[in-house]
């Protein structure tokens, strides 16, 4: 039911872990539906590009697709400017994973929301 890419990211997730004293943190999802995701970002100011996501990590309690989307979002967002990162959508994540089962598109495809929440948290703290 899952694509090869999803299984790859699920079994060997990228950038899994915690950033201590992160610049921004986003928690999305809820225990009722079973998926909870926490995205940590570190932001660096680049002279030419502006504010860039220098480091990103995640912790996720959830199904295989929740973990795979978390892993994928960290790949997609790393090195991007905050402006670019805000534009990464749920569909972008699903596409990069070579698709998700229809039922997962809605409930477990939370990673873009998590990233956006972390960026907003960073902006609020400023």
């Amino acid at each position, binding site marked *: 039911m899952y694509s090869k890419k999803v299984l790859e990211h699920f079994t060997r*997730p990228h950038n899994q872990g915690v950033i201590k004293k992160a610049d921004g943190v986003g928690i999305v999802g809820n225990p009722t539906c*079973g998926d909870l995701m*926490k995205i940590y970002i570190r932001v660096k100011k680049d002279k030419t590009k502006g504010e860039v996501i220098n480091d990103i990590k995640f*912790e*996720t*309690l959830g199904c*295989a697709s929740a973990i795979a989307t978390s892993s994928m979002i960290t790949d997609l967002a790393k090195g991007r400017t905050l402006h670019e990162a805000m534009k990464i959508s749920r569909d972008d994540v699903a596409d990069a994973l070579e698709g998700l089962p229809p039922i997962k598109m809605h*409930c477990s495809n939370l990673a873009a929301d998590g990233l956006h929440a972390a960026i907003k948290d960073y902006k609020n703290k400023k």
Partner: protein
Amino acid sequence: MKQIYLDHGATTPVDKKVLASMLPYFSEKYGNAMSLHEFGNEANKALEKARKSAADFFGADKEEIIFTSGATESNNLVVKGVLRAYYDNIRSNLPKISSNLRVPHIITTAFEHHCVLDACKAAQKENLAEVTFIKPNKEGIIFTEDVKKAIKPNTILVSVMYVNNEIGTVQPIAEIGKLIKNYNSKLPITNYKLLFHTDATQAINYFNCNVNKLGVDLLSMSAHKIYGPKGVGALYIRKGTAIKQVMDGGGQEGGKRAGTHNVPGIVGLGTAISMINDQGTKNKKNEILKLRNYLIDKILKEIPKTRLNGSKIKRSPNNANFSFQNVEGESLLIMLDAEGIAASTGSACSSGSLSPSHVLLSLGMKAEEAHGSLRLTLGKNTTKKEIEYTISKLKNIIEKLRKVSGNVLGDYYQAKK
């Protein structure tokens, strides 16, 4: 990679002896059991032999067994057919007051299989019945006293499963049977008799299913849970029970279930059920119980923050159901599958619905505990080696998934405060 099948609660492999008994009825003895010629006679004979095997197993008469497509159909037939008979009876006996018919009452449990639960809910929605859903206790056991308290003058059916399919807990069917017999004996003779049904699908392999010991009027079963084929089941209907067919068509099964007989399937059911009380099978049951206890003890001991769901004592010998904190069941299942181990979970993700197992929630568990559940159901071919392998893989996988989830659950609740 070696495959380890620990999902016998979902289905079982067809036993070789069962398969061999079925094979002639596909291309050689292919008659329709309702036909009057020799082909038909041949099929009918096989059918009646299977019926005898099932009847013997349940301590019933042959005429009290009908064949269906499985437990889902049997259970639907019970709920819908009992209601249909009730309305027919009331209408024909009391034509004058038919305009203000009393809506009958059904008692069932909150953790039945969906085929019973949803059939009852559909009846409720269509105003054909009012329904009480009795909750089990934390251990997954229904109290007879709660059934007693729920009975009302208009109650016509009590349906309680024998063994719960997810947590394997055993319900006091014989005790409830006594209660209902006693209740019926005090009713005026003119009153509508209260019927007792049990869905015994998960009980057939391991528990006494004598219908008189249990005191049931109706009992459902399915062949594919007992090393028989899929797509065939049976329903025991005590003589004189008011129930009407739901499927309209030919007059098969005494008019209770229309549709051409699945002869090979029914033959398979007959062989499978006749093997259950073999001495060899009995010895196997003890082995399964020992292995299962070993599995439970070792997992609870070696994997921290783990709980067993459902009573350890009042439990089917082949069932283990755990919840692992900070782990989600579907991830767990897929990781196990990658190691060749087949299991199941009460997580929503596995079922195609958005909420986790209604069974686990009915025990008062939190959604995240239900999401983190794993059911392992052993079978007659399960070996100690397989159990050891499963335990060691499970330990690694849980550790890995807990690392991925970190403290996100705790952080979530902290943020909610």
